[in-house]
């Protein structure tokens, strides 16, 4: 029986490693920081103005052809609904945006908070998707291609705002359901999203993200008594296209204030960085171990039946 030559053996190793390397070529570079598109649009949500009329929910439902809700959009009793240990309503396959009511201590009126996709500058959903189903458009929208989605739901795990929902009810074509900034029907034609347009109070201001940041800080400066001195989304997880001003502490009205200012992908960088290292070091390292650990005879006759080794061991 012909034994394996050293060259042959090394070739095997390299082919194995090479095949792996090919599939991973861009991993290490994928984590470069993206500041967002310079002309990205955004929406400034001023929660101090919201009166909880839920017009935005209704407009979204119509614009996106969503299924009929369980209750009328007029029905204010929906604000009393809680789920699972006091959870407020969240976005799901039937609603891309929801408004929740909060009663923070020390404020006279309730504070309403509108939830929808915040359209991150460097979206976690996008970076976690292994088929690249998400796109951050130059207008700022984070859109989704349902035709290639496999349904792993990693984006739902990754989203720090718990926004993407899944249409579990469909057996044949379940897809991710989330706010797309009305990209197809409005944003790309230069129009504001449906919720922004319908809002009677102009809770939402649509414009270029960088100008909205200036305007937001101007509002805080002009009316320090009305606002918490923070623009939520300016820096959170690398910045979002939708940003919030609030009349009460953010943590008391359902916001996660423990978020890092780095995009989510930064947490993954440590691992992604090790990938090319492992690919480069392991083959040589373990081949080296192999050469050190086995005698010349073992290498040359590796293909032989192991009984031979045992016989030798018994003899020696």
């Amino acid at each position: 029986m012909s034994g394996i030559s050293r060259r042959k053996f090394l070739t095997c190793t390299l082919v194995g490693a090479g095949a792996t390397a090919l599939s991973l070529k861009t991993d290490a570079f994928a984590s470069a920081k993206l500041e967002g598109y310079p002309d990205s649009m955004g929406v400034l949500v001023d929660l101090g103005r919201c009166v909880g009329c839920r017009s935005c929910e209704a407009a979204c439902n119509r614009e996106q052809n969503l299924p009929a809700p369980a209750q009328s959009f007029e029905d204010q009793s929906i604000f009393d609904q809680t789920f699972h240990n006091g959870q407020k309503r969240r976005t799901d396959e039937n609603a891309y945006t929801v408004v929740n009511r909060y009663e923070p201590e020390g404020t006279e009126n309730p504070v309403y908070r509108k939830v929808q996709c915040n359209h991150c500058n460097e979206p976690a959903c996008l970076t976690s998707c292994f088929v690249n189903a998400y796109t951050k458009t130059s207008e700022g929208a984070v859109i989704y291609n349902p035709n290639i989605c496999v349904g792993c739901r990693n984006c739902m795990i990754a989203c720090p705002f718990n926004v993407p929902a899944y249409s579990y009810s469909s057996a044949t074509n379940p897809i991710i359901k989330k706010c797309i900034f009305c990209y197809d029907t409005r944003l790309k034609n230069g129009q504001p999203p449906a919720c922004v347009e319908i809002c009677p109070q102009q809770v939402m201001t649509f414009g270029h993200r960088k100008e909205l940041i200036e305007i937001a800080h101007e509002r805080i400066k002009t009316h320090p008594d009305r606002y918490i001195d923070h623009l939520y989304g300016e820096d959170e997880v690398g910045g979002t296209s939708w940003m919030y001003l609030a009349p009460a502490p953010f943590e008391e009205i359902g916001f996660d204030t423990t978020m890092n200012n780095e995009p989510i992908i930064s947490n993954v960088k440590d691992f992604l960085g090790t990938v090319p290292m492992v690919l480069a070091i392991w083959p040589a390292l373990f081949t080296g171990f192999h050469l050190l650990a086995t005698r010349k005879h073992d290498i040359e006759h590796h293909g032989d039946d192991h009984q031979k080794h045992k016989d030798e061991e018994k003899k020696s």
Partner: protein
Amino acid sequence: MKTHLANQGKVVDSHKRSADGAPWTLKEKLLLGMTMQQYIVQAVRNPFNWILALIFAVGLPLIAGRFFFGLNWVTHSSNDYPWGLFLGFGLFAMVPLSASGFMLGTTVEIFGRHDFRPIERLALLNGLLGYLFAVIYLLVDLGQPWRLPYPMVVSFGPAAVLFLVAWHVATYLSVQVAEVSSSFFEWIGWPAAKKFIREITVGLTVSGIILSTLHQGALGALFTYAPGKVHPLWYSASFQWLFFFVSAIPAGLCMVIAVSTIARKTMAWRCDEEFKTNLDKLTISLAKGASMGLVTYFTIKTIGIAHDNEWGYLATGWGAWYMVEMVFGVLLPIAIFAWAIRNRSASLARVGAFLTVAGIVLNRLNTALITFNWRLYQEIPHWREVIISLTIFAIYIVTYRFILYRLPILFEWKEEKVLVPETVAAAVRSNEKYQGAPEPVATYRTTD
């Protein structure tokens, strides 16, 4: 099976019957040397099969229902818990328990520890089946499982950790099929194919190490996408991949101990003398490796807590739960292994191994499910989800048993030496002819 052997039945462990020298047919090989009737009788006699039948009777219709009625029929359709038991247990727990393949492959082929040979094939098979069933769990969980090849052929998301996992698991699964195939080739009688696999064994093994290191780690790294959702005690941006990779080492080794223990107990007839006599010694050796892995794991987990300064969490309820996991899943096994190695007690080492396996499963469930969304609420999986998970695990056991009964995993295939190199080509030719032949008349000739 015991009854069959008691009635002077023969065990298939070579191409030929020992009595008359006539070769086994493929059908006889599949039926373990029994007639169809004998085979059915022994299968019905086994009470374990009745339990399995019960699980399948309930579970298989539920699995079918999942594909007909959608995921919301079998799960709570949670948008907050997109990954339930199928992935929490099926993927995240099965994969580390399957690290045995690359661990033993490395030990034997790379470090030249040929004394581990009797258990190497079991470890490789354990790896293969674990991965295979992790993929099956995944297929049940994916919204559109028919699109599974998309990340390979349709659209690439190379920045995603899951992209890496998909590619590595797919590649590694093929590597493992190749590694395990040599026992299949022995069994079916294709020596040339086996010889080819042997020649590329080291290459396969090294690529196995690379792929395993990366995707065991990558499974951990998947959770670094969810910094606010996984409880800080189970989360570490810097070390998550190391936690998963390092804990996979004792997990894989202990799974081999656990499976070999069960195999030795429940299918002693199938184990050859070499396996039986070496098992205790090998168990101790594996326990040594596992305890080193566990000590390392414990150390880096502690470093992880120190690094992110999470000591305060230990005083909370979650901290207590964390301590339960660490004490019963890591520290207690370390103590048991230390005692077992010192006293050379294989049975004690087995206790430690089962504990470790449970501890790693708990760790993965804690990370993926139990402490996930710790600031929101805890979700209890739907009963159908639990039953389906159990059913797939039962299929895993049945497949495992089916292969162990037949292929030379726990025993060495006899008669191999009669195949002299010069006749390999002839043997291949003749075998090619047999491939198309109808089953009952197929015979396998060795070059005697």
